[in-house]
């Protein structure tokens, strides 16, 4: 009797096990938090060195069109104008998303509402496979197929925003499609049946009911695609031309933030201005991915389907 009372009041094997378990899982989660914080910290501290150590004017960095970190301009300031890369990065991202969205939504509608059986059976595995194709493979196909084709039609080298856009379009299409399928499947079936029962045609149902109900998640899908396109490095680097020039049309060589980083970070010396300036580009990438993240959260919070 007393023995049981004593056992009730003292720790046992089970309570020790539980402490072990807590320590293990808390340690893992702490490692992830430390990791994220140190990524943010290291990239940021390197990225701001251009402005704090090398005293480059932030506005000139963002609006300058000349990227030549080794030389000084007329004002004695180094030429680190990131605008061409910022413009190119945004151009390829937005163009690829604009191009991919209608296709992605059409395919998603086809899979969910027009031919759910055959469409899903055939398209679903293919799209899953395409999501998994490594980006260098996309880049390689861009280099061997898209660039020569553009060269053939428009002349010049063939590399540039158009080639980048086409490669990214193909890359983000499966991503946006599979998220759009999820979005449309999340619309409750009674939305559809109610609309059809009221005599609406399928198109009216799709346009007025389905797309509206799924709109927030469709937007999220597009933003996800854009985030992927914006951060994509190698595939774009292979077809963009890698010349830091302000893009004036879609078929001349230029550079994105990512392509500039991958091409040059190994050719500069740590701690020098040319190197710091590259880290500033990485910082822009980091900040943009946070912005995409925030947008997705904002849309997600506002647009939950209430049923």
């Amino acid at each position: 009797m007393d023995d049981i009372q004593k056992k009730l009041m003292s720790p046992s094997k089970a309570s020790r096990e539980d402490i072990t378990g807590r320590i293990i899982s808390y340690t893992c989660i702490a490692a992830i938090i430390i990791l994220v914080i140190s990524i943010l910290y290291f990239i940021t501290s390197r990225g701001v060195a251009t402005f704090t150590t090398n005293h480059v004017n932030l506005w000139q960095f963002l609006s300058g069109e000349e990227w030549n970190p080794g030389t000084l301009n007329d004002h004695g300031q180094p030429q680190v104008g990131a605008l061409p890369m910022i413009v190119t990065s945004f151009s390829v991202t937005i163009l690829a998303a604009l191009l991919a969205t209608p296709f992605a939504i059409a395919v998603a509608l086809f899979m969910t509402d027009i031919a759910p059986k055959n469409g899903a059976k055939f398209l679903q595995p293919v799209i899953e496979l395409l999501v998994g194709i490594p980006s260098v493979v996309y880049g390689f196909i861009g280099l061997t197929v898209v660039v020569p084709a553009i060269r053939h039609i428009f002349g010049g080298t063939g590399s540039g925003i158009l080639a980048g856009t086409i490669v990214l379009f193909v890359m983000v299409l499966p991503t946006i499609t599979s998220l759009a399928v999820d979005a449309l499947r999340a619309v409750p079936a009674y939305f559809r049946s109610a609309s059809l029962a009221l005599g609406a045609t399928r198109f009216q149902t799709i346009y007025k009911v389905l797309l509206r109900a799924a709109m927030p998640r469709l937007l999220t899908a597009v933003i996800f695609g854009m985030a992927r396109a914006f951060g994509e490095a190698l595939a774009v680097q292979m077809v963009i031309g890698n010349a830091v020039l302000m893009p004036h049309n879609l078929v001349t060589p230029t550079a994105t933030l990512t392509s500039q980083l991958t091409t040059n970070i190994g050719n500069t010396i740590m701690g020098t201005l040319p190197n710091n300036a590259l880290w500033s580009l990485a910082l822009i990438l980091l900040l943009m991915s946070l912005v995409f993240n925030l947008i997705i959260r904002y849309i997600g919070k506002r647009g939950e389907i209430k049923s």
Partner: protein
Amino acid sequence: MQAYDLSQTHIVTPAEEIALSTNQLQVYYGNSKHASMSDASLSFPRFQITALIGASGSGKSTYLRSLNRLNDRIARIKGEIIYRHTNINDSKVNVYEVRKHIGMVFQKPNPFAKSISENITFALKAQGITNRQELKQRVETSLKEAALWDEVKDDLNKSALALSGGQQQRLCIARAIAMKPDILLLDEPASALDPISTTKLEVTLKELAKNYTIIIVTHNMQQASRISTYTAFFHLGHVLEYDRTERIFQTPMIQATHDYVTGNFG
């Protein structure tokens, strides 16, 4: 629903030896300030079956799950739960030990995705029992006590998930009593079962009451009157009446109890 006076109660203290009792037990879910269970003071006699009855949402399951501190993670529980002269509702008390002595069987059969014998031996091994002979013995005894042995003795290594619902529930009982608990809590154990399995289960429970103190939550008033010695009637988070089962069903003292057991409730 008719409004009853919740302050008017009739609660007896059984004359028998008491195995477990609660004193002013209150349960608050999450951050809620509203008590889902208020001031429940009940004493459960040893080696008897006590039934907790009441409508859905009356708090009977909430109360039952607090007795082995299974609600710890999702609710705040105030008041005392006295077991062996110890208040086990105390953060200093080793909750894992508590649950070894106060076993539980749930509404839906929840066998582990393991073989029938592993279902029973898993917790025993965790306790440090490694002797194979003893483990085998415990499997056999507990399955016999739960009246399942004859049906499964040749399939002990088969997956427990392949059993029928009634068999699964009796396996869960066997799993609980293999720990040699003092008290067995059952949360509507028959509600997912067909009538034949239910009858079998009730026979098993009556048999088990010779060695265990049983507290059972049930929706089914016939079941309560068939198997229990004492019955507590729960309403809106309050215990309104607690007495010997025949008195609850034949001469209840409280209007709400009367209406409930005669079917004029709500």
